[in-house]
C-alpha cells in the first residue's frame, strides 16, 4: 500500500489536470456571448468608474463577462488573454499596461481570430487591427491649459509654470505633456521656462518631487497636473505654503488637471481649481462595447476601428452649462450614465 500511494497520488494529479483542461476547453458561456474584460488595477476613480460602466452594461445586455485583473503586469495580462482565447470567448476588451504590450496582445487575438477592443490606453502604433477607443489627450490638455493661460494673462505678470508629468512609458502622459506645451508656447512672453516634475503616476513620488520643486522655485504660480488623482498630494504641498487658496485670493495658484473626476469637480466648485480636462468616460465605455458587439454580430474576426473621444475642458466659465457631461460630477451626483 505504501508503495502504491505515490502512484495513486500521481494518477489523481494527472486526472485533475486532464479534467481541468477539458473544462477550460469547453465554450465558457455555452451559447451565451462571452467577453473577456482584462484590465489593470483600479487605482484611480477613473478606472473604477470605467470598470463599473463596462461590466454592468455588458451584464444588463445578457453577456457573460470574464473579468481578469493583470495587476499592472503586462506578461500576466498576456497570459490571461491567451487563457481567455483558449476558453473560446467571443471578444476581448483590454485596458493594457502600456502601448507595446497592447500590440502584443492584439497580435495574439488577431492570430486566434478573436475580435479585440482596447480601452483608453492606445497601442504603440496601429499596425495591428483592433477597435481602439481613446481620448484625444493632447487636445483636451491643450484646451484646458489654454483656459488657464487666458486666466493668467489677466493678471498682467510673468508666470512661473509647473507641470506634473505622468509615467513616461504611458502614451497618454506624453500626449498630455505635449498639450500643455502647445498652449504655453502660444504665449512665450507670459511664461518662464516650465518646471517639469516627474510623478511616475505614484502619489509618494509626486509628493516628494513637488515639495522639492516648490522649495527651489517658490515663485511657481501656475500648475498643471497630468491627472486629477494627484490633487491630494498637491494640496498637501501647497497648504503649508499658504498657496492652497481659492480664485480671487492673491496667493491663489492657477491650477488645472485632466481626467474629470469627482475630486476635480469638488475643488472647482470650491474655487480652488480653475479648469480640468474631461475624458468622456461613458462615451468611451459605450463606444468600445458597441463596436465590439457589432463586430461579433457581423462575424468580423479582426475589426479595425479607431474611435476618438474629443473630450472637453470644464472651466470656471462653462461649469454650470457643461458639468452634466463630466463623469466625475455624474458619479458624485449619481446621475444616469448614458453614453452619447
Amino acid at each position, binding site marked *: 500500500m505504501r508503495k502504491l500511494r505515490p502512484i495513486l497520488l500521481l494518477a489523481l494529479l494527472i486526472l485533475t489536470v486532464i479534467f481541468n483542461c477539458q473544462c477550460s476547453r469547453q465554450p465558457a458561456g455555452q451559447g451565451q456571448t462571452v467577453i473577456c474584460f482584462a484590465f489593470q488595477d483600479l487605482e484611480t476613480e477613473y478606472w473604477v468608474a470605467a470598470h463599473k460602466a463596462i461590466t454592468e452594461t455588458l451584464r444588463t445586455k445578457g453577456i457573460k463577462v470574464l473579468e481578469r485583473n493583470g495587476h499592472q503586469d503586462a506578461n500576466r495580462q498576456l497570459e490571461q488573454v491567451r487563457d481567455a482565447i483558449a476558453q473560446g470567448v467571443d471578444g476581448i476588451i483590454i485596458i493594457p499596461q502600456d502601448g507595446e504590450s497592447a500590440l502584443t496582445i492584439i497580435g495574439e487575438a488577431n492570430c486566434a481570430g478573436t475580435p479585440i477592443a482596447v480601452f483608453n490606453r492606445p497601442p504603440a502604433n496601429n499596425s495591428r487591427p483592433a477597435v481602439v477607443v481613446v481620448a484625444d489627450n493632447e487636445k483636451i490638455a491643450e484646451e484646458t491649459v489654454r483656459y488657464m493661460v487666458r486666466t493668467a494673462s489677466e493678471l498682467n505678470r510673468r508666470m512661473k509654470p509647473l507641470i506634473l508629468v505622468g509615467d513616461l512609458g504611458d502614451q497618454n502622459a506624453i500626449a498630455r505633456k505635449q498639450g500643455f506645451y502647445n498652449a504655453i508656447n502660444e504665449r512665450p512672453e507670459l511664461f518662464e521656462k516650465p518646471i517639469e516634475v516627474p510623478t511616475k503616476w505614484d502619489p509618494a513620488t509626486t*509628493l516628494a518631487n513637488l515639495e522639492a520643486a516648490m*522649495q527651489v522655485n517658490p515663485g511657481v504660480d501656475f500648475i498643471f497636473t497630468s491627472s486629477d488623482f494627484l490633487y491630494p498630494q498637491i494640496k498637501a504641498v501647497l497648504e503649508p505654503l499658504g498657496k492652497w487658496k481659492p480664485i480671487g485670493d492673491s496667493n491663489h495658484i492657477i491650477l488645472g488637471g485632466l481626467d474629470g473626476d469627482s475630486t476635480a469637480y469638488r475643488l472647482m466648485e470650491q474655487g480652488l481649481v480653475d479648469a480640468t480636462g474631461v475624458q468622456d468616460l461613458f462615451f468611451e465605455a459605450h463606444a468600445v462595447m458597441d463596436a465590439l458587439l457589432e463586430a461579433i454580430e457581423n462575424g468580423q474576426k479582426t475589426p479595425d476601428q479607431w474611435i476618438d473621444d474629443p473630450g472637453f475642458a470644464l472651466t470656471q466659465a462653462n461649469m454650470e452649462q457643461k458639468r452634466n457631461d463630466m463623469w466625475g460630477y455624474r458619479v458624485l451626483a449619481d446621475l444616469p450614465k448614458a453614453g452619447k
Partner: protein
Amino acid sequence: MNMTAQKNRILLAALRNMPIILFVGLFLCFGVLAPDFFRYQSIENAVKQASYVGIVAVGMAFVLLTGGIDLSVGSNMYLSTVVAGLCIQRFALSPAAAFVICIGAGFTFAMTNAFIVTRLRVVPFIATLATLVAGRGLGRMLSQSRAISFPETITRIGSARLFDVVPYPIVLFALTLLAAWIMLHRTQWGRQIYAVGYNLESARKAGINTVRIRAIAYVVCGVFASFGGFISVAQLGNVNAGFGRGSEFDAIAAAVLGGISLFGGIGSIFPGVLLGAVMIQLVSTGLVSAKVDLYLHSMISALIIFAAVAIDSHRTILLKKMQQRHIRIE
C-alpha cells in the same frame, strides 16, 4: 615614516566616514546645480520624505545583519495600511486604534515570514518573495484594488510639527533610529544578531538560540515596515494598489548605502541607515531641483546609487587591508 602613518590615519578616517563624505559630496553637487538647494528647508524636506523609507530600512537592517533578506516589506506596508484603512471606514476608529491595527497586521505578516524562514527552513529570498506576492494579492482582494482614503485626523500627523518646529515624520524616524540603535548596541540580544550574521555556525556553537534571533529580526523588520507604511499614508492621504511597490528595493539600497553588509554581521544603524535613506531621497529631489531632463532621472539615480555602493564596497576591502597586522620576519 611619521608622514606615512599620518597619511594612513587620514585615509583610514576618510574611509570610515565614507557614507558621510558621499552624502556631503552629493549635497554640494546638487547645491551647485541649484543654489536654492542649500536652504535648511531642502534638507528638512529630504529627511521628511525619506522618513518612511528610512523606517523600513532600519527594519531591513536587522534582517540583513542576520545574513537574511526580506523582499516582502513593500507588500507588508500595503497590506497593513489596507487593513487599517478598511477598519477605519467600517468602524470609524480613532487614529490610535488604526495605528495599533496597522502594526498588528504588520506583526502577523512578519510572523508568517519568520515561521517560513526559521521553522520551514525556506531560503529567505524565496520565502519573502512568496509573501511579497501573496501579501499584495491579499491586500488587493481586501481593497478590491481600489484606493482607500484616510481621514484628516490621520493625515494631519503627516503635516503637523512637534512644537511647531520639527515635522512629526522626522521625529518618528528619529525615535525609530534611537530605539533600533539601543536594541542593537546596548542589549545582549543586539550583539547576538551581529554574531548570528557574522557566522551562524559559530553563534550556534556559542550557545545562541539562532532560530529565535533570526525570527525576532524578521518580526522587527515587519513591524517597522508597517510603521513606515502608516507614516507614508499619513503624508499621502490614501493607499492605492501601487502603494509600497518597490519600497523593498529602496529599503535595501538605503541600508546597503549606509554600510550594512548584504552578507550579514557588519554595519550600523546610525548614521549609516539614516544617511543611506536620505541620500536616496536627496538624489530624487536633487534631480528635480536641478531641472534635469526627466528621461535622464532613472539612469542618473541608478548610476549614483551604483557608484556609492561600489565606492563603499571598495572601502571595506581597503579598510580590511589597512587594518591587517603586518608581521615582518627578519
